[in-house]
């Protein structure tokens, strides 16, 4: 076989893959309740233990089963970085679980060539009582390495993790940074032919994320294959050579044109959400510090506005929330993204000097902030609630399925006849210009 043949080889072949979950009876967990359900059903009565939860109703069949994946087929070539995108609950995680053999498919098959490793497994099986050395071996063998293989790479792993001095200390005495470095070092030296990365960019510090991204690029340059699941569209676009869009268990789109797939994902995403009004109907995001009730775009008097908006309109962003416990470290605001998913800015109520912070009080609060006029460009934007107890914990972590709204801006770019059309820029601010004459003269 010639080498170029090999390069274009299919390393993963997914054929008609489906995964069905049972609803209702399966979650009961005790024999007593299962018997109770069975008794009720044999008498033709309603099962007392049925629970539908938050599943999308259209995916539920008559017999209380739910298709998390339905007839998914695709191939991955060697050296590809495949991005998998889709909304939460679309079936991405199920697909990865089946690929990494954590759970089995209901029908269909996956054929794999080579060893599969997942960066999700960082630190899996670490035992706190054992030393770093013992854990390297334990973790390595869990990931499928042979002992001789670890012997060979051991020094390299320890050097990569930069913990030579502490290698014989129990890992429970490690700082979290050392722990993650060691765990990552083991995973990184597994030399898998296929690497699965699931949202790894959402965890760890910036340096760790960078290391992960770097490793992914490096791995694909060596002719290996990476599967990458993320909500971070920028990372997907930068890294991936191919993208899949999964929606409600079906493979909606797959293409080498990653931008196109991202666009249809984002377009679809916005159609299903309320355009400029969000209400907390399901009682989500409960917390005593800032429990959001409504989140909407409105005019000065708080009346909701109809899209599209003009760039010269007075647009306000409203967040209504209930506060049970006052915390002085509370910062809330919004993050603004463009259509491609790049974040343009964050804004918090605490951005101004301290004496100008809006006064919050226990009970209902309405926070409101004007969207800068003449700053954005024409096009679609997404506004997301973000908030935290400053330096303590996120209440609404950016890009983590927090409430968001879509804004459409059309027209009103400027009063100038020369600035009436959309420029290919992220922003379109109207700035002041003046002419500073070099010498005193009349024009």
């Amino acid at each position, binding site marked *: 076989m010639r080498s170029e043949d090999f390069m274009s080889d*299919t390393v993963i*072949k997914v054929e008609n893959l489906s995964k069905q*979950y*049972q609803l209702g009876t*399966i979650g009961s*967990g*005790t*024999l*007593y309740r*299962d018997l109770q359900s069975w008794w009720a059903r044999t008498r033709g009565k309603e099962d007392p233990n049925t629970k539908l939860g938050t599943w999308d109703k259209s995916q539920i069949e008559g017999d209380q089963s739910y298709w998390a994946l339905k007839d998914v087929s695709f191939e991955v070539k060697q050296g590809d970085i495949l991005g998998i995108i889709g909304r939460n609950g679309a079936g991405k995680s199920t697909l990865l*679980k*089946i*690929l*990494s*053999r*954590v*759970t*089995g*498919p*209901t*029908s*269909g*098959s*996956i*054929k*794999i*060539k*080579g*060893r599969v490793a*997942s960066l*999700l*497994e960082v630190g*899996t*099986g670490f*035992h706190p*009582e*054992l030393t770093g050395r*013992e854990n390297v*071996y*334990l973790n390595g*063998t*869990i*990931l*499928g*390495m*042979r*002992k001789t293989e670890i012997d060979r790479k051991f020094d390299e792993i320890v050097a990569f993790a930069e913990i030579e001095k502490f290698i014989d200390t*129990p890992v429970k005495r490690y700082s979290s940074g050392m722990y993650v470095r060691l765990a990552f070092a083991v995973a990184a030296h597994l030399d898998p032919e296929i690497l699965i990365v699931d949202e790894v960019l959402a965890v760890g510090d910036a340096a760790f994320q960078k290391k992960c991204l770097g490793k992914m690029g490096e791995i694909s340059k060596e002719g290996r294959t990476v599967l990458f699941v993320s909500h971070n569209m920028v990372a997907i676009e930068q890294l991936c050579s191919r993208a899949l869009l999964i929606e409600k268990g079906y493979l909606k789109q797959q293409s080498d044109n990653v931008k196109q797939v991202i666009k249809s994902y984002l377009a679809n995403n916005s159609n299903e959400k309320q355009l400029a009004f969000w209400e907390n109907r399901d009682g989500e995001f409960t917390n005593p510090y800032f429990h959001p009730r409504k989140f909407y775009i409105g005019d000065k008097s708080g009346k909701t506005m109809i899209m599209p908006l003009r760039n010269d309109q007075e647009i306000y962003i409203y967040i209504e929330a209930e506060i049970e416990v006052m915390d002085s470290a509370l910062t809330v605001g919004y993050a603004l993204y463009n259509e491609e998913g790049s974040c343009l800015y964050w804004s918090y109520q605490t951005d101004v000097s301290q004496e100008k912070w809006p006064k919050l009080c226990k009970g209902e609060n309405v926070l409101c902030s004007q969207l800068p006029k003449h700053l954005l460009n024409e096009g679609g934007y997404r506004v997301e609630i973000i908030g935290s107890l400053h330096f303590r914990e996120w209440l609404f972590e950016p890009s983590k399925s927090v409430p968001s709204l879509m804004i459409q801006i059309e027209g009103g770019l400027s009063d100038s006849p020369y600035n009436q059309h959309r420029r290919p820029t992220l922003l379109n601010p109207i700035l002041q210009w003046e002419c500073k004459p070099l010498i005193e003269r009349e024009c």
Partner: protein
Amino acid sequence: MNHNHQEQWTSIIQPSNGWFDIKFKEIWNYRDLIVMMVKRDFVAFYKQTILGPLWYLLQPLFTTIVFTVIFGQIAKLPTNGLPQMLFYLSGTVMWNYFAACLNTTSNTFVANAAIFGKVYFPRLVIPIAVVITNMLSFGIQFLLFLSILLFFICQGAVPIPNLWILVTPLLLLQMGCLGLGCGIIVSSMTTKYRDLSLLITFGVQLWMYATPVAYPVSMVSGLMRWVLIVNPMTAIIEIFRYAFLGGELIPLWYWGISGTMTVILLMISIVLFSKVEKNFMDTV
């Protein structure tokens, strides 16, 4: 060319089919992991304890003392003329191994859900490692038994062990298989029904009283005798005792029944395990 491709796949993921879907070759490939798991469980058990590995000795000693007081002194149960200390210790050491295997393997899936949920390796590695780990602690307890036995032999209280001691490895293997089998059956069912795990502690205790640990088979008759015969642990403990301490040997067909029971239970467990293995993450 196409045919060539077919052969190159290193793994094929399919829905579980067939009743006996365990890949023994794959388990062999993961033998290093079994060794690591055994090491981990054994070492982690006594790290940060005052007495360290001594715990393995104290537990059977205390049980033996309690048995000697309750069954020997208060209830005055017969011991076939054997020294009470040795009689109870031999029963306890053997039973402990079986009970430990059964108890630990029975929550394989639930206790390891975190690892199982993230990474694939043959699931059977865990219960196998447990059986081996327990074999090590059995070894320590067995040495304790041997040294006390030696003491009694020097005193002339018991005769020198007979040739039946040569079947001891066979008895251990059978006990390991039995503990593995029963444990796996329970663990496969606890993935769906958690309340079974509550039953297990209680069940193991009950089972011990239906096994001649604290009394000899010879004192039981009638229906209870049949319970003992069907119980596969009876023959194992009685033969072990006869080999090392002498006394009465049970009819050998008891052991035949016990062996058959072990094989049947092990088969059932493997079938159940291969059914549960692939999809248990959805129900756990």
